[in-house]
């Protein structure tokens, strides 16, 4: 062909960044062409993690969703504590830290939203194409996104829950329960020397347990977002998964449906959270929340695996 390859060594690259050492003498790469003076690093998961951290901290939706979550959890927790405190001593049927549940029930919706947006906003804007040209290992991109989001969601939720638990405990703790006072079944184990306290298990459940549960729910949302690639669709799906079971169970009237109703209640995500706070929706008052957390973890792992398989096969 008539067009020759560039034979002369190329002039210095377009910019010469300040402070940049003069580049090494040009050596033609095999096959001719340009060779960059910029140091070349082999990209690995660490790079993807740094990149995803920059992404998640540099959009407003992160600040908004997590900020609102924090305010809902702590604010409603505080209101609950004030309300319970004004009732004074008397009939007690709620564990000491259970007041944190109501705020978190709303707050988890923010985490779900953020989990979805972390991935669907890339599809919505077309950013995913830029992302995947920069890092063609799609599994690595998904893993980095999942890890960064999960850790961020876990830390912020656990912080909010811990603060709320401390509020509950400082305002309501030490209420005296005299032997003749009626006491709800749920709190029977939490009375020490006639005072309502929170056991260390209750502390763990209401802080790390709750944080883990909500962060897992967020991660499940991320996986659903990666599969559906559509913000509204994925958020709606997750809302349905969280809110529908208790609503549906309300319609399951009659003996024949009792099994279904109980299963819906037992395995609904809300019940998992409620159980961690010691106020399960089912009849098993003393159930532990951790088996349900395990169920959620398994479901999430499967969903993330499915999302990884899908992202590798689909065009973007």
């Amino acid at each position: 062909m008539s067009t020759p390859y560039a034979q002369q060594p190329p002039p210095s690259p377009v910019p010469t960044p300040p402070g940049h050492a003069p580049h090494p003498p040009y050596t033609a790469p095999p096959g001719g062409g340009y060779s960059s003076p910029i140091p070349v690093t082999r990209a690995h998961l660490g790079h993807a993690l740094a990149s995803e951290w920059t992404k998640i901290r540099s959009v407003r939706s992160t600040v908004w969703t997590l900020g609102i979550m924090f305010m809902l959890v702590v604010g409603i927790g505080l209101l609950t504590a004030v309300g319970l405190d004004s009732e004074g001593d008397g009939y007690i049927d709620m564990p000491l830290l259970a007041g944190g549940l109501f705020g978190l029930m709303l707050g988890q919706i923010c985490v779900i939203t953020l989990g979805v947006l972390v991935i669907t906003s890339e599809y919505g804007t077309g950013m995913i194409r830029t992302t995947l040209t920069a890092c063609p290992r799609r599994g690595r991109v998904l893993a980095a996104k999942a890890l960064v989001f999960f850790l961020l969601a876990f830390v912020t939720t656990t912080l909010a829950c811990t603060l709320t638990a401390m509020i509950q405990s400082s305002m309501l703790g030490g209420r005296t329960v005299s032997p003749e006072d009626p006491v709800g079944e749920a709190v029977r184990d939490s009375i020490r020397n006639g005072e309502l306290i929170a056991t260390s298990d209750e502390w763990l459940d209401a802080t790390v347990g709750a944080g883990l549960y909500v962060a897992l729910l967020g991660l499940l949302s991320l996986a659903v977002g990666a599969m559906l690639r559509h913000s509204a669709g994925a958020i709606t799906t997750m809302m349905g998964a969280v809110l529908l079971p208790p609503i549906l169970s309300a319609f399951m009237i009659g003996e024949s449906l009792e099994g279904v109703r109980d299963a819906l209640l037992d395995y609904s995500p809300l019940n998992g959270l409620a159980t961690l706070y010691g106020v399960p929706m089912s009849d098993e008052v003393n159930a532990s929340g951790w088996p349900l957390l395990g169920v959620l973890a398994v479901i999430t792992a499967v969903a993330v695996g499915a999302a990884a398989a899908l992202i590798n096969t689909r065009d973007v």
Partner: protein
Amino acid sequence: MIELEGLTKRYGEKTAVDRLTFSVRPGVVTGFLGPNGAGKSTTMRMMLGLDSPTSGHVRIDGKRYDQLQEPLNHIGALLEAKSVHGGRTAYNHLLCLAQSNGIPDRRVDAVLDMVGLASVAKKRPKGFSLGMGQRLGIAAALLGDPRIVMFDEPVNGLDPEGIHWVRNLMQQLAAEGRTVFVSSHLMSEMSVTAEHLVVIGQGRLMADTSMADFIAENSRTYVRVRTPEPERLRDALHATGVNAVAADDGSLEVDGQPAARIGDVAAQHRVVLHELSPQNASLEEAFMRLTAESVEYHAHTAAQGQPPGPAPGQSQPPGGDRPTQQWGTGWKEGR
């Protein structure tokens, strides 16, 4: 160096890219030309490993795209649509890309400077104009100081100054020994930028040629003559062995003769001339002729608005086989 071999992409019934085989060499700007819907963007997405080909393959410097260890150092791409999160500042957008390839942060400032966006580095691209968006995309493409750059319609939405800038940038990048692959549907734009030309129509390769050859073979030069007595002039010219053809608008067109010769003949026969002008058939016309039968979306205009060449729809029976003799096949054979 980019090599395509038998690259094919089908969307259901529709074949968007049809057995493309060509390579893009370093050191020159290669223009990738085709009418709307020809499959340029689809081809580029497959080159970047974003879409997977139905069959065939692409090699970047001999490797599959997903085997590249530091992709941004190999290839930088400006994609068709603004592929940017509108809520993340220009700086952070480039920073997250740089980090994913282990590119030092200072490179972000360097490319922002290079494309002239340094002053809006902390602004969100949501509010960027079309041209600023293109510049941000180009900044991202240059981030890794890549050996291959690929621009999908880079001058879209740019003002004349911006077009000039992109043009110079591409030529400079090529002069540095890089592979530059740029798509467009404007032949005129390519004729001033590209040294090599790949033309596709309906996903099929129509031409793979150097720009110089394309121009030589396609620029028909002729002389246009206007006179109140066209018949007399025609006869006079005919008598000297020169053939004049009457054009639609009443003028005469004379191929392969200098204007002076025609003027002399007219003077000898005392024929009044109103116009005597040498003409170059535009490359745009040549391009349209080349892709005429493959143009997918025709505007419904009167027949005279059509480019020369076989009328679309006639040459290709609906759903039938493609014509055996195509415009452009000669290109490949001629080499």
